[in-house]
């Protein structure tokens, strides 16, 4: 049997060759996508403790912060995953652009969805939203008074996350940023979740539709879950009494 020259080329740097092949890059984007979706689900479950009252949310937050170095390790890992997700997308974007320099004059995007065609744009808007969200509630530079809010929980002085969130979401423009930013995330995940099964090769022609519908359902469920918090606070006065 003859070996084709392209197949012979791998050798000792087979890992690197795989990583920077078309399929390798796509796989990195899909795999980091799964991890980011897992984070988004976990983050929502934690945040929903706000509906259980100030102590529930504050003790959840205090528990997270008590992890100390482990928390920083998780944050660093998340940042790494996000950077890899974006970096490999950019590499793919550049190649995809070069592969179709001339667009059709009579353009007709047959077979595609608007979610799929806007992945890069929706992703970049979500990135901007994530940066705002971190500045808002993690670094607390949007409203510096957030940093000084404290409360006592079981005799310990802890950061009053509940008061911070309720105050934060009492601001109309901020609520709008969250509602729009999270909508773009849903838009992104409407294609992303279903699509990653295809990229990772764990699909077949019968099950694909299920993944697509399931992915969209999860994306919208996440949207409903996330915006329930600002909407409950801004429109239905959740927690207003508790922080008086």
């Amino acid at each position: 049997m003859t070996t084709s020259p392209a197949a012979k080329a791998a050798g000792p740097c087979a890992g690197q060759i795989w990583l920077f092949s078309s399929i390798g890059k796509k796989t990195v984007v899909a795999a980091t996508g799964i991890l980011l979706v897992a984070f988004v689900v976990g983050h929502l479950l934690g945040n929903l403790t706000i509906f259980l009252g100030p102590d529930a949310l504050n003790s959840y937050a205090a528990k997270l912060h008590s992890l100390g170095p482990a928390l920083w390790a998780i944050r660093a890992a998340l940042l790494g995953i996000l950077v890899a997700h974006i970096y490999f997308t950019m590499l793919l974007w550049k190649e995809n652009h070069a592969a179709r320099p001339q667009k059709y004059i009579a353009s007709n995007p047959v077979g595609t969805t608007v979610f799929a065609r806007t992945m890069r744009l929706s992703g970049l808007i979500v990135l901007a939203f994530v940066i705002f969200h971190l500045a808002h509630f993690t670094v607390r530079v949007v409203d510096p008074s957030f940093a000084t809010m404290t409360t006592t929980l079981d005799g310990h002085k802890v950061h009053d996350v509940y008061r911070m969130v309720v105050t934060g979401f009492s601001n109309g423009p901020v609520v709008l940023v969250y509602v729009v930013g999270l909508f773009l995330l849903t838009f992104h995940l409407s294609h992303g979740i279903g699509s990653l099964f295809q990229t990772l090769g764990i699909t077949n022609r019968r099950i694909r539709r299920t993944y697509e519908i399931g992915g969209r359902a999860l994306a919208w469920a996440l949207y409903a879950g996330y915006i329930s918090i600002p909407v409950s606070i801004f429109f239905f006065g959740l927690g207003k009494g508790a922080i008086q």
Partner: protein
Amino acid sequence: MKFHLKVWRQKDPKSPGRLEDYEADNIPADASFLEMLDIVNAGLTGKNIEPIQFESDCREGICGNCSLTINGVPHGPGRGTTCQLYMRKFRDGDTITIEPFRADPFPVQRDLVVNRAAFDRIIQAGGFISERSGSAPDANSVPIPKTTADEAMDAAACIGCGACAAACPNGSAMLFVSAKVAHLGLLPQGKPEKDRRVLGMVRQMDQEGFGNCSNYYACEAVCPANVPAAFIARMNREFTAASAKEMAGLPV
């Protein structure tokens, strides 16, 4: 029937091209799209205008030579090749835009003719069975499960026309490559070279400058052979599995 045509005219690979307007008069509704162009060309010759260059061969839907994008869709509306597209599909008086297949690795040679040698080079990088397996074996002498045979046949339906790469907003040839990888790799004759085939063909595809799949599924929507995009998923996992073998130092 009567149509207004906007046709991409380009003198040679280096010249810039542009759309030019032509009128197609007295076209029978049962003429195929290519026959319609033949009629238009016959009229142009009389007027001393260079005829519109396009490729065609079998004119029965199996060769995949016609590289026309009609109103933004490779091979035009509906599944099937351009020769199997009949003018009755259009409305009388329609304006029809005809462009060549677009993808960087498919350079336009002239008008609607593109060079698809990139696909040949991908085939040369692994789309074959090295050992002569003799003449067609007797039926059932090599038992193959029905589902496997059906799956391989679905992949083998690919005629290599390039509509998938032309439809893909990323100019990705993955539907074509995955069909070849699956059709040969599923059957006993092609299985021994499965790993080196997928490695060779995918690397050649990347080297030719085809884009990466974003799971738009535009390829599947235009494929005249109805090749499903599930074969791309199969190729993805086979490529990663074969790469893992390479990384582990196993022979491929």
